[in-house]
């Protein structure tokens, strides 16, 4: 199994590869995107991308010298004419910068990338929403050689999709998320991706929210957060605290929950123990989420997965042994114990809860 690591700074390439990354993925944000509706990828802001194609070329040079491929992320839907045109331009510039492949969710872009670059690796992003083998097979028909499975599937559901895909799209390689999985909402169907800031009430609120999404269309309305406090508050609506009022429909009852968040559960989810099952299912690529996270965090994640791979080679028959050694490794690398609440997969969460009783 190969480790696919995120990157957003040129200087991260070498430490990530030395830690054990087999592949890097990144995006580029540039001023051209401020003039069209949409974005090149769904981590457009928050320092999650390289700043130019010159930086991308530096990354591909460093990585190719060490024999590691670099994938370029273009995972936003590009339904608008201007957006689609700019995405194709970026694709060409990335190809000229030496990337080895693309991560794409838009069906048209996927087909066009296959036509323009038949020799590059094409990955259908998790934003393709392939919850079943039919949609996976469709991605393969459009030209994808690899599919990132949605993180919202259980292990049992993942197994069913993988097994069916072996029949329907035998050449399709599979990738699964393993680290830093956070939000409870379905990524590919969510309208909360862009940090919009916490604005006071009044008529400017929705307008400034739109401006945060497409600043080029509303010059002067959106100001990027500058202070630490502003940055903290510039979160998507799903991460903001709400007062939740839960009420019965049939029976009259009501209770209130303060500081409820409709998206993230404030824990970086870990699906690392899932690799024990992924190996049996034929999932070849392990994806780390984390563009925008500190370099030290990214390196720790890669080291952890590289270590887990080693453990799996030694005990691929007994999950209990694998899981216990994985927890020790995690504590050694991150300096904090593995908590049941970190478990991404509900079956593991349930098993851990049972252990504690």
């Amino acid at each position, binding site marked *: 199994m190969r480790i696919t690591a995120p990157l957003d700074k040129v200087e991260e390439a070498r430490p990530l590869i030395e830690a054990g990354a087999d592949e890097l993925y990144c995006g580029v944000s540039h001023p051209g995107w401020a003039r*069209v509706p949409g974005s090149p990828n769904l981590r457009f802001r928050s320092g999650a991308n390289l700043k130019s194609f010159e930086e991308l070329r530096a990354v591909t040079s460093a990585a190719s010298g060490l024999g590691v491929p670099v994938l370029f992320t273009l995972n936003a*839907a*590009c*339904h*608008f*004419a*201007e*957006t*689609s*045109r700019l995405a194709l331009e970026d694709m060409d510039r990335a190809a000229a910068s030496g990337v080895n492949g693309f991560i794409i969710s838009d*069906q*048209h872009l996927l087909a*066009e990338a296959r036509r323009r670059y038949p020799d590059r690796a094409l990955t259908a992003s998790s934003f*393709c929403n392939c*919850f*079943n083998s*039919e*949609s*996976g*097979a469709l991605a393969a028909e459009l030209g994808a050689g690899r599919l990132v499975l949605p993180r*919202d*599937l*259980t292990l049992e*559901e993942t197994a069913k*999709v993988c097994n069916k895909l072996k029949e329907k799209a035998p050449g399709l390689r599979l990738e699964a998320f393993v680290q830093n999985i956070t939000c*409870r*909402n*379905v990524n590919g*169907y*969510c*309208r*909360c991706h862009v940090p919009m800031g*916490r604005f006071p*009430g*009044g008529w400017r*609120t*929705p307008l400034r*929210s*739109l401006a945060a999404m497409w600043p080029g269309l*509303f010059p002067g309305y959106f100001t990027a957060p500058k202070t630490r406090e502003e940055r903290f508050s510039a979160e*998507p*609506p799903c991460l*903001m*605290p*709400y*007062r*939740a*009022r*839960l*009420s*019965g*429909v049939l*029976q009259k009852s009501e209770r209130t929950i303060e500081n*409820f968040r*409709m998206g993230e*559960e404030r824990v970086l989810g870990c699906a690392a123990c899932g690799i024990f099952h992924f190996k049996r299912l034929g999932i070849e690529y392990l994806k780390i989420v984390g563009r925008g996270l500190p370099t030290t965090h990214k390196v720790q994640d890669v080291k952890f997965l590289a270590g887990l791979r080693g453990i799996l080679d030694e005990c691929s028959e007994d999950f209990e042994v694998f899981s216990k050694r994985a927890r020790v490794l995690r504590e050694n690398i991150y300096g904090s114990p593995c908590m049941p609440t970190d478990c991404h*997969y*509900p*079956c593991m*969460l349930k098993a851990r809860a049972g252990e504690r009783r």
Partner: protein
Amino acid sequence: MNAELPLERARHLRELPGEPLPEACSRLYAGDDFCERLLPEAEELRRLAEQAADRGLRFTFLTPYCTEDGMENLKRAFGVLAPFGCEVVVNDPGVLRVLNRDFQSLTPVLGRLYTSLLLPPYFDDRRVFGRGGALRSFRMAKLNLSDSYFSFLKTNRISRAEFDNVFAPPLFGDRFSSEGIKLSLYLPFTYISTTRRCLFAPERGVSTKLALLGCARGCLEQRMLLEGGHYPDRRIHVIGNAQFLKNGSGWWAHDWRKWGVDRVVDFAR
């Protein structure tokens, strides 16, 4: 688009009530566009389609994004509905593939999970567009959908697209109607996001992750309202496994026909 023709009124219901529907309602929507666990069984669906036909109502089946198990259930449902030749609202690329390959008698309709990512959820706001500036900015910014988008629709036999009430039709002008694609508008809710870790599925105090393992349809008995946060003057409605804003009919209701909308769906999830 002929602005004089009446709008088709449709209503989303889990089951047909004994009493007659409002006179204007001429179409029944059944199924669910967010959760595969809320879909009716195939036989229940057949009964609904027959009842609708008996009462002179046209029939549309709403389908969600779905797992491998959900897809098998949907294939059974499509088999039952195929003789009725009804519409199927599609929100999953795999479902669209199955319909086009195996069920040509059913008419695929582009669901709002597909169209929603075109625009954010608060686009109906009069305070934004009532002042003129924002709408003008968007039109000047060439908010036009690409040819490849319409090519995708035509390749997949799509002749109708469904939107939440987010002011989409005026923003896109006559682009849809010039391509022969009709538009539906959902009222009153506009969806923000959806989850498979449903808040109403697990026991209290237990992580919502466990919702993935099973569900007792608790969402049919509970609702949640979120106040404050990003929308200080609006409440978020958590209904089942999705979150919504309530946009109402919108201030541009008198213009619906003009912008290519020929159907309004009363969504009662």
